[in-house]
């Protein structure tokens, strides 16, 4: 009896430990996900999307966005590893949560999926703006495309868009090509040109525009052509990932199951690309792909093993680092040919591409420059869709010691010769001077 109580206690302690650990490289699996909804009907109308997440092991916690008991953290620790905001019309969150709470949530490394829709609230727009995404300000505007709309019996106003303008990135969208176009019905956004962290994943065609489909245009629309982004992702500097979509219905069962035929195209697909697109994208957002970690940074002189505390100018140095990518279940060796090392003081003195053994180990060797000062070994790796690797290790470089200079300089031989001849002469002279009679 006592034993079972003890066991239960241990299990609960273990479970608490699991709960408390948020996102970390040691266990980069986001498992607890907060899902905020406008209306519980979304839970059933979007159930295929939620189910796909649950099957992959996510623990979804559904809450109404205006639930007064809503809380993101308790006693200073976050209760969730990620959040899904499917509450486009919510004007204010329940509890003491506001837009800033979600930004703090992201700032502390948690992931976020945000879906806006026509008539999105200021609150949702505010969060999006803070992430570098500007939704069309006109509340009645929808993305309209008269050339690449989805042939539909229901939406005759060409607001149901079939887009296949994906970003070319295997790490974000998976290596398997998404053949069927993705159905989208909602509002468009632009990404801030100054913000390099936002990436358009799904763009509108160049004939698209964003306006109220029922009104006559009096001014040229602000969002137009392929600068309209339908779905964007953000990877923050702390590697938190955010997915922003202008359409909530693109996650819905109806769109996931719908067949799709793009206007002007003869090929009709049984199923829209939404399911594959969203599954792959969520895999990326939840760090199941493209999350790198670097281990075992080593450097030493050629022929030695120990890491010195200081290098001398013109030393030959070997540098190595191991890089692994999280595959959702384990850390796999990361293979690439564009990892670069910088030997850096104010600006890079040496920049070299690292060689790899294809098993995660990257290495190179170089000669320390003949400039002394405090240098850094720097690996700044940024690649579309991958988490940033930023390693730096400080190391001082000293000049030659007084006895490390060259001693036998041929050009100086006449001077040496003169000195030694003088010395020889002196010796001979003393003998002859002292003893000649």
């Amino acid at each position, binding site marked *: 009896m006592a034993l079972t109580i003890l066991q239960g206690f241990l299990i609960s302690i273990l479970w608490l430990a699991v709960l408390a650990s948020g996102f970390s490289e040691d266990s980069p699996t986001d498992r607890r996900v907060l899902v905020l909804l406008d209306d*519980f009907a979304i839970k059933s109308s979007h159930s295929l999307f939620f189910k796909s997440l649950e099957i992959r092991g996510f623990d979804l916690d559904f809450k109404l966005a205006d639930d007064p008991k809503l809380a993101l953290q308790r006693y200073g620790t976050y209760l969730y590893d990620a959040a899904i905001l499917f509450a486009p019309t919510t004007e204010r969150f329940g509890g003491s949560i506001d837009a800033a709470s979600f930004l703090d949530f992201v700032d502390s490394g948690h992931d976020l999926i945000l879906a806006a829709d026509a008539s999105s609230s200021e609150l949702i727009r505010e969060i999006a703006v803070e992430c570098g995404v500007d939704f069309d300000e006109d509340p009645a505007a929808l993305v309209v495309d008269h050339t690449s709309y989805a042939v539909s019996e229901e939406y005759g106003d060409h607001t149901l868009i079939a887009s296949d303008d994906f970003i070319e990135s295997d790490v974000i969208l998976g290596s398997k090509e998404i053949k069927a176009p993705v159905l989208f019905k909602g509002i468009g956004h632009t990404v801030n040109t100054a913000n390099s962290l936002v990436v358009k994943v799904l763009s509108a*065609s160049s004939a698209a525009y964003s306006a109220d489909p029922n009104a006559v245009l009096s001014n040229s629309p602000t969002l137009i052509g392929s600068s309209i982004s339908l779905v964007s992702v953000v990877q923050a500097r702390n590697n938190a990932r955010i997915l922003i979509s202008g359409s909530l219905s693109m996650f819905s069962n109806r769109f996931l199951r719908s067949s799709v035929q793009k206007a002007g195209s003869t090929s009709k697909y049984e199923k829209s690309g939404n399911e594959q697109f969203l599954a792959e994208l969520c895999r990326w957002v939840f760090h199941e792909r493209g999350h790198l970690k670097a281990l075992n940074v080593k450097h030493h002189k050629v022929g030695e093993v120990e890491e010195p505390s200081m290098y001398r100018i013109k030393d030959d140095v070997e540098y190595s680092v191991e890089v692994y990518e999280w595959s959702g279940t384990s850390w796999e060796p990361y293979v690439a040919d564009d990892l*670069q090392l910088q030997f850096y003081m104010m600006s890079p003195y*040496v920049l070299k591409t690292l060689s790899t053994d294809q098993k995660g180990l990257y290495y190179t060797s170089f000669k320390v420059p003949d400039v002394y000062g405090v240098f850094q070994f720097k690996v700044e790796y940024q690649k579309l869709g991958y988490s940033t690797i930023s390693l730096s290790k400080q190391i001082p470089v000293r000049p030659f010691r007084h006895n490390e200079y060259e001693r036998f300089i041929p050009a100086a031989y006449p001077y040496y010769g003169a000195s030694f001849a003088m010395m020889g002469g002196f*010796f001979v002279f003393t003998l002859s001077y002292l*003893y000649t009679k």
Partner: protein
Amino acid sequence: MTAFMGRDLGLLIVAFCTLAWATESIFHPVSQLHRSAALEFFSSPDGHFGSLVDTYEALRTFQVLGIQKDAKIRTSACASVLETLKSPTSDTKHIFHALKTNSLLTCEINHEVFWGIQSGLTDSLNGASALLDFYYAIGSLVLLKDQIPEVSLNEGDANRIAQSIKTLSQSDGRWRLNSNNPESSFDAAGMAIEAIAGVISLSTSEIDPNVIDALKNDVVKLFDGIQRYDDGTYYFEEKLVDAHGYQGPLSVSASVVRGIAAFAAVTPESLHLSDEKILGLSKYFLGIGVPGSAKDVYNLIDALACINNLKGSIPLLLSFPASVISTTKNNQVKVKATNVLGSVIPNLSIKLMQIFTKGSKDGSVIDQKLKYDHETEVHVLETLPESIDIGSYIFSFEAVFDDPEEKKNYATGGRTKVPIYITGVVSIDNAEIAILDSDSESSESVKLDLKRENAVSLSANHLQKMKLSFHLTTPSQHSFKPKQAFLKLTHESGVEHIFLVGTSGKKFEIVLDFLGLVEKLFYLSGKYGIQLTLGDSAMENSFLRTLGYIELDLPDAPEKAPRPPPQRVDVYSRYGPKPEIAHIFRAPEKTAPAWLSNTFLALVIIPFIGFIVSLFGLGANFKAFPKKTTSAAFALLFHVGIAAVLLLYVAFWIKLDLFTTLKVLGLIGAFLLVVGHKTLAYLAAASSSSKLKSS
């Protein structure tokens, strides 16, 4: 303040426009989509569904959808039904589910088994106080009655049970699960109504009319608590979201519908349910589309089946296989009149009552009867009214029964308004582009064929204008104004400018006066690509065409001119490896070549050799070397010491550092001082004595 008012006014206008446009979404009856979803969710490769509840839900869904069930399912399900019914430990809940499954399968079960459980059920019914106990016991007895018609409740019992269930009801139409629990729910209300309906059907005589009236009142109150979406769908949702055992709106609405349907089946009178709400409820279920779990599929399908049997208010759905009507393909407006489960309702005709043009409130009255096609079971509008050109419209249809009496059975919801898009090919003629000199006539004018890409090349300076014009006509030779008529100029650097192409009657024309546009174009001279986009939902040949390019020669930008916005860096080029950097080492100092140094080394050595040779030539000798042993030893040591110092210098050059050298030098120096003194003192003494001798 005014700003706020202006904003509010704007919102009001938007709200009014929305209201004026409030057409209900189109709802389609249960379709193949639901069937495939049901087959997917209720898949049983081994003919086994798990618990009896799951089995019942699967079988019920299959029954409603008309899906043939596997014989294997029947065998295994019947075995488990029989096992549950025979087991003395089964509680009423399990018996209830077993009987429900049996009612669908009609397993071969001995009547004695039924009699065996009947007494147990009656006992538990008499001892029941909680709603669920009543619900399961009464439900089981009702199902038993189908097997053995003798099962019934006497009048006293029936009234007593009905009363005790009734005590659990709340004033807002919701019910509590038991008398100790203050929480009430719609879900419980559905079960309670179903249970009382069961009591009524089991009762041997007329039940107290007060009970029935009270229950009718409850139903009315229940429907007062229904929620509404903007698109005209109605649903029930629990107010207490956090309550334990929370049920989603789908299962709650399904539970209420089951209760209402059971009640409507046992009362001879009508329940006077609002047609709008019943239609709204069924649209809610249909609007969900395909739910995500087996439970939801069952709730949805079962609720729809229950609504479909609702006496006096069977929802009648007008569905539209197509709302986009292409004039080039000779599509026709088709209407299907069905119940929610998709079976066609006969003996009625559909009338097109009104057509509204988008944007106007008043519609033209048509009142045209649609032709019924017996083969495809659809009502077809054979010819569109004369006045209808391509564009978007709202058609208003009404169902008219051949026999007016039959209308009472159905909830039709009055007129059904649907957006209909009539599309066609718009012809584009007289397209031309020209560069105009000030206001005079065109200097060069190029005809364009907008059916394909063009590649005109124009050039203009800031004093000239560019003019683009074309005509658009609909298939019925009316002028057409598309929603999207954009002219886009794209500078080489990627800066884009959009201009709306305006219309004057039939003619579309845009004149770009570059003098007024220089600032907008950021004074950027160079090549501008010209693209024209024409698009409308009614225009089948919407397009985006490149017309060519124009070489603009604009004046230089003044200092305070606005700068073009920064262009977005291409994501693919933003990352990627940087060019390698190799450190360039300082070149070693330039020194003389070795042969030169060696020559000079030789030259430097020559005087030394000359010195030695000349010493011998002059007759240098060792005659003065001390003869005495001690003095000779000191002299020898003195010279060895000097040689040691000199060798030390050689060693210093070769390997020693300054400190070692000085240390050793100190020692040798001290030694030299002693022996030097001795030697030199001896030599001095010797020389003075010889001087004395000579003098």
